[in-house]
């Protein structure tokens, strides 16, 4: 029998598994660092917002996974990522920087959020090209693409919360979608109504948006690669494979039916005929993940800062 593995090694392994190239540590460091201790103002959302309530829930990882699966279905968004990012070489870095950006715009004060958005806009300026699949030209700063990425994120936040997190009232769902238009505008979506080319500002507009955009979506080798990477997670310890699978299946199960069909997924996972994991089980796995996350330096303190601010306004 091999020597015993200490609990410490196990937890370190757990962290690594979920980390995938340091994603976990980097995301945690970004969270600890970017939840401000002395914000100049409440930023674009603030402690009373539905956005804070939703984004502080455990469901973040499922929502994030779902968001990436959905975003990959737009050929032009996918082409931009393939041609201009190093997600294949350093997927952890790619995801961590997105996570850090979302943390900054969500919890940072206005100056911090604007500065982060300016950096992203700057990067987007260089992200242009031709999609090899459709032959269409693309530019990351194109409001249509920005809205796509934004809508996928917002929709995923709602879908994950619905199934596995705080079940929002219809009014709060509308409020969340409306609040989040601020994030879309930060990164360059025109600050106008949905009908005039702005971001969806209610749950109904969000649904209408997806109905309208569906004909532009397609799968390709790239989407398949993204899905395979996210759902199979190479190198997951055998003991943890089950836990990871629960999260992956949760993300798949929360996708719209049409998106699952495009990928050829089943109802509750990538295998056809699979059954969705139940809410309790998903939250238990998320809780374990959250415990490891809390172990990263500064995460607990950052969370307490948020809790105190939210409590101060009665949330």
């Amino acid at each position, binding site marked *: 029998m*091999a020597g*015993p593995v200490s609990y410490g090694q196990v937890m*370190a392994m757990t962290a690594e598994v979920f980390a995938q190239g340091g994603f976990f540590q980097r995301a945690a460091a970004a969270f600890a660092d970017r939840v401000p201790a002395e914000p100049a103002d409440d930023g674009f959302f603030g402690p009373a917002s539905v956005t804070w309530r939703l984004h502080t829930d455990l469901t973040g990882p499922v929502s994030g996974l779902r968001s990436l699966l959905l975003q990959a279905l737009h050929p032009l968004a996918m082409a931009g990522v393939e041609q201009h990012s190093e997600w294949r070489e350093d997927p952890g870095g790619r995801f961590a920087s997105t996570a850090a950006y979302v943390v900054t715009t969500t919890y940072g004060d206005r100056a911090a959020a604007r500065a982060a958005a300016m950096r992203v806009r700057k990067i987007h300026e260089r992200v242009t090209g031709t999609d090899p699949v459709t032959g269409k030209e693309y530019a990351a700063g194109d409001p249509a693409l920005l809205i796509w990425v934004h809508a996928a994120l917002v929709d995923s936040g709602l879908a994950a919360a619905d199934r596995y997190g705080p079940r929002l009232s219809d009014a709060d769902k509308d409020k969340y979608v409306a609040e989040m238009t601020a994030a879309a505008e930060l990164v360059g979506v025109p600050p106008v109504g949905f009908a005039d080319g702005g971001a969806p500002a209610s749950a109904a507009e969000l649904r209408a948006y997806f109905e309208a955009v569906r004909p532009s979506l397609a799968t390709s080798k790239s989407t398949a690669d993204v899905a395979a990477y996210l759902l199979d997670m190479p190198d997951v310890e055998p003991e943890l494979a089950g836990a990871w699978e629960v999260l992956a299946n949760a993300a798949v199960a929360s996708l719209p039916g049409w998106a699952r069909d495009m990928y050829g997924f089943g109802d509750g996972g990538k295998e056809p005929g699979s059954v969705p994991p139940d809410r309790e089980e998903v939250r238990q796995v998320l809780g374990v993940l959250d415990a490891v996350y809390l172990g990263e330096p500064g995460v607990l303190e950052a969370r307490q800062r948020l809790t105190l601010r939210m409590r101060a306004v009665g949330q």
Partner: protein
Amino acid sequence: MRLAARGGARYAANAPRLFAAAGERRQQLRDDLALRTAQDVADTLGTMKGVLMKIGQLASYVDDGIAPPARRILGRLQDSVPPMSPELASGVIEEELGAAPERIFKEWDPLPIAAASIGQVHRAITADGQAVAVKVQYPGIAQTIAADLGNVALIRSLLKMAVPSQDVTSLIEELRERIGEELDYLREAENQRRFAAYFDGHPTARVPKIIDELSTARVMTSELAVGARFGEMLDWPQEEKDLAAETIYRFTFRSLYELRAFNGDPHPGNYLFEPGGRVTFLDFGLVKYFTPGELDPLIHMIETLCLHEDDEGFRRAMEEADFLVPGAPIPTEDVVAHMALFYDMVRERGSRTMTSEYSSAIARRYTDFKNPLAAYAKIPRPYVILQRINLGLFAILGQMNATADWRSLSEEIWPFVKAPPSTPMGEAEAPWLARARPGNL
């Protein structure tokens, strides 16, 4: 959950000065973060977190200490559990005792003095003027943890990684049992009553008495104990530490051989110290009772090895106790050589100093799977907890650098010797011992 208690010990560091401490900024922060509703409790200790803390506690005894990354994770997890708000705690008292604490007690401190097993401890003064400690359980914790314990697949994978050397099925069973026990304060109160009754009148060991009429399944009231915390005691002169260690040793093994009960995990937060070797023992949530049939083989092992120095007899005793597969192709001298370390401090008379090195060596020996004996040796289930408590006890005595003639102390206690007192504390025990009666078992 005793791990939670460890985290809690931090905010209880100034417990005896509590009333004075109220209003400090640190206090303010805690109040701000306090759990205000049963939902807060579920959010904080549900989704596997309470169970994880418990797994960590089990793992910490099975393995050779906890490595830094896991210690950090578990430590943070404990820190992430704030106390209940005064209103939430008050609500539990009202549900359990029928009225708000201000009506039940003459004085009630709304701020907790310590975290406890899945709850927290408040100080109060009863209607007849007695100072008491009131342990209040987090509301809804039982349902929350029960739901998480139902996810056997996830627990199984966590345990498989945490303690691959152990039988996961029996660990899950143990986890369930332990958590079930901790959730029921009536059971803990019953444990504590037995120990309190047995040690009543003991010159140095003290167990706070349970106040029956103020105790239920979720609220447990006992005499308020005072004394220095473990960390403070470590700064005392060595003679004082030796006396305290002697009390802990006597308490532990008198309990085992007379009450056939072993108390909880001996972690530093469960003792309060006063000069002269006086120790108050707290927290009886985790008590293992042994039947004579379970205890006799252990006694037989000690007797053959330590008293008769009969190696073959010791080996047979090990086999009879199911510690060793009969007929294992390992020479008896190797069996004895391997096992002797566990009995090292009681094999010969004379002063010995317990050190952290010794306790670590013992802990390592437990997890030494490279030893050829490992394939044939096991720890039968009734004794698993005993081994852990032993390790914990040695670790405590090691930290205290305690010196004593452990063999002579043991001879006073061993039922097959019952030697006369070997120390002044032993002399002082005599009148108590003459009338001490084991509790009803």
